[in-house]
């Protein structure tokens, strides 16, 4: 192993989190920053030639190579885990930009009480909370995180319509959202026919539809860093693809143009980080292998773990950087509070063509009348809700083929099936939901005892299953989905509620897996403090979705960016000047 010359800051992971930290640190300090990324660089020109549904949306050409590394899953500690051999209920990325290249750019904020959820639920329900509920407060308030949301929205160029501007409710936005200090940087998109049908039906039912906030630009935009990008062209090759014109915010088009000019920044691709090296309460750096298999130690004063949720937690576990969580005793912190998201959808069949091949990852209309704390009191057993929305993300000809109202054909092949599939083609849309997933004592991460990665290191093991609460959430939102579908004059198919009977790794739900190295107010119950600094090693930072104590509804990337920008302020304004624990 070769010991390299020390640098000031070393970061594991070249996605949204790692590159945002690198951009902030190199802009505002003279510290030298090295980012280690296991995958390869990406170019805009790759993405035009990548407008191919088969390779990218079905074979997942941009995703983590599962033959090298995957996760295992079991439903409870009583079962043994098996590997996720093929994608998958979630889709981690790889390469420069990470999953931030293939995301859909949907950019919701969480609600103010999400950040103090344990306190909120105790105040509301006292001790009448479900057995095993392990939700926690994040350790900061809405007023503390709101400025970072605003910075994140400007960075990536979020378009939408405010529903609450400094306490004033505005019709046409999400009237249930936390107060915003500013209107969105960009207006909402033009809306597709299918989404306007949803909007009209929802409004007639007395709900409050609003355009889904999204960072696929609704206009040409120049952000505060001077990075200019073109407006979205609605080509529909969006989620699971890289954007060929740079309209969808991606680390390669928002962050790399700035970083490429910085002399104190370097990016090493093809470099797989293996361990955080540490002793005596101090992180020394990372060991990593380059593409040729040479092993290095990169020492640094500040060491930042900034990869995707499961990879963050796993790197800490492999490095023995924290006390592993034990669900039997509730002791230990590393691996606790694994959450995913409660996904449900209802298909609505309409009598008109919808041209669903046009679209963008975040293009759609939404209601939040049953989201957060809203609407749930009419549904016994439901603590928190989820968004209900119709998205026109760009439907491919393979994935979009074969949606037929239930009972219409006897078998799913042959002439009769073909006839029905052609007749119904492009005449149905899904109303879907992502609801908050509570943390539970029994859902957690540890290292798998049987399965290993390409280096022989143990895979991460997910112990995760749904509870009655998620099934009650599902029943609530699918009831409303069907109600809106009928109000759209559609034929409504039964929802996919089987998805919540047992956690299923084969059906895509979202890549919004969170937790495992959570933030909190006490080292007894969290791995990092509210600045995302390791409680036991003040020069080690663990940044990303891994820090969420539980999941919100909607897509978490904007919240990840907000806590990342806040962590950057902690590092730059406080830690770099006076090293030590910030909390």
């Amino acid at each position, binding site marked *: 192993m070769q010991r390299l010359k020390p640098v000031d800051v070393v970061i594991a992971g070249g996605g949204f989190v790692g590159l945002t930290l690198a951009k902030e640190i190199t802009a505002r300090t003279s510290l030298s920053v090295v980012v280690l990324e296991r995958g390869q660089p990406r170019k805009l020109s790759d993405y035009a030639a990548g*407008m191919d549904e*088969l390779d990218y949306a079905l074979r997942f050409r941009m995703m983590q190579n599962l033959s090298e590394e995957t996760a295992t899953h079991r439903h409870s500690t009583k079962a043994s885990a098996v590997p996720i051999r093929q994608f998958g209920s979630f889709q981690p990325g790889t390469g420069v930009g990470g999953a931030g290249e293939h995301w859909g750019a949907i950019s919701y904020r969480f609600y103010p009480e999400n950040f103090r959820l344990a306190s909120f639920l105790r105040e509301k329900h006292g001790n009448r909370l479900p057995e095993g509920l392990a939700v926690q407060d994040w350790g900061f308030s809405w007023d503390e995180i709101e400025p970072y949301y605003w910075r994140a929205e400007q960075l990536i160029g979020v378009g939408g319509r405010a529903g609450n501007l400094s306490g004033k409710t505005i019709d046409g936005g999400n009237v249930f959202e936390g107060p915003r200090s500013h209107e969105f940087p960009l207006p909402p998109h033009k809306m597709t026919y299918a989404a306007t049908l949803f909007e009209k039906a929802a409004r007639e039912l007395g709900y409050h539809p609003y355009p889904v906030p999204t960072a696929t630009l609704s206009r040409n935009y120049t952000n505060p860093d001077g990075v200019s990008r073109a407006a979205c062209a*609605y080509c529909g090759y969006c989620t699971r693809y890289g954007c060929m014109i740079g309209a969808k915010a991606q680390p390669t088009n928002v962050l790399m143009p700035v970083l490429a000019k910085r002399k104190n920044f370097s990016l090493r691709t093809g470099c797989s980080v293996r361990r955080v090296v540490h002793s005596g309460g101090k992180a020394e750096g990372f060991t990593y292998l380059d593409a040729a298999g040479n092993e290095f130690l990169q020492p640094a004063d500040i060491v930042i773990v900034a990869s995707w949720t499961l990879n963050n937690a796993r790197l800490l576990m492999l490095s023995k950087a924290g006390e592993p969580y034990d669900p039997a005793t509730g002791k230990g912190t590393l691996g606790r509070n694994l959450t995913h998201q409660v996904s449900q959808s209802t298909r609505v069949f309409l009598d008109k063509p919808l041209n669903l*091949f046009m679209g963008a990852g975040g293009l759609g209309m939404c209601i939040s009348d049953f989201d957060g704390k809203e609407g749930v009191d009419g549904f016994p057993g439901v603590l928190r809700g989820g968004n209900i929305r119709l998205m026109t993300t760009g439907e*491919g000809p393979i994935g979009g083929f074969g949606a037929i109202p239930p009972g219409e054909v006897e*078998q799913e092949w042959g002439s009769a099936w073909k006839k029905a599939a052609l007749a119904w083609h492009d005449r149905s849309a899904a109303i879907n939901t992502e609801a908050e997933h509570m943390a539970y004592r029994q859902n957690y991460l540890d290292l798998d005892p049987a399965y290993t990665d390409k280096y022989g290191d143990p895979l991460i093991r997910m112990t995760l299953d749904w509870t009655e609460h998620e099934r009650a959430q599902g029943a609530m939102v699918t009831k409303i989905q069907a109600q809106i579908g009928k109000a759209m004059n559609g034929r409504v198919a039964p929802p996919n509620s089987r998805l919540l009977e047992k956690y299923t790794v084969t059906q895509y739900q979202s890549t919004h897996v969170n937790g495992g190295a959570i933030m909190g107010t006490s080292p007894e119950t969290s791995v990092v403090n509210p600045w995302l600094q390791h409680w036991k090693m003040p020069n080690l930072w663990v940044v990303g979705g891994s820090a969420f104590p539980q999941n919100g509804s909607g897509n978490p990337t904007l919240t990840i960016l907000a806590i990342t920008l806040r962590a950057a302020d902690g590092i730059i304004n406080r830690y770099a000047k006076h090293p030590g624990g910030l909390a």
Partner: protein
Amino acid sequence: MKRREFLTLPAASLGGVLFYTLAGEPVRLEAQSAEGSAPIQVPLRFFTAAEARVVQAACDRIFPSDENGPGATEAGVVIYIDRQLAGPYGRDKYHYTKAPFVESVPEHGYQGKETPREIYRAGIQKLGNFADVPAPERDQRLKAIEKTTFFRMLRQHTIEGMFSDPLHGGNANMIGWQLIGYPGPVMSYRDQIDQFRGEEFRRKPVSLSQIVGHPVAGWEDERD
């Protein structure tokens, strides 16, 4: 070295040109009669000629050519499947394939050791003289294996071969896209996105290589 195997097709069977009548009914026009034009010989990458015949016959029952338009045979679905199996997908190159292989609950998906190539080889063998029996008997045989991994793959791959970009070997002359009115990977709908409200937006499809102006290699062409 393995003897090269070919799939032999009558020239008029592959692709063709689709038109929509005013009533929206697809009508296929043959470019020319089969007589007088030499058959097309497609080199196979994975299947033997005999295997390709069986797969083609099966795909043709899954997505038949009938009064509702062309099917798997005209789209060249068997060529698509042959290339997929020959490429990284066929040998599970990007799937996790480490032991131990244990049976688990359905929520954990396919946990078997066999690759798509092996599943096809075994499945084709079981179909026996499938290509030589009449259509009703073919349907019966497929019905009998409907729940198997092999059939589920075959059905999914047939849809993929119908509607994936022609660069992958199927969807010949974009016949699948014409059938469903898919315009191909068009770079911009800025002027259309909020128009055509409940009406079809239809135009002659374009393929990815036509859009970008050069041939595009699919993942199946990746060298090991």
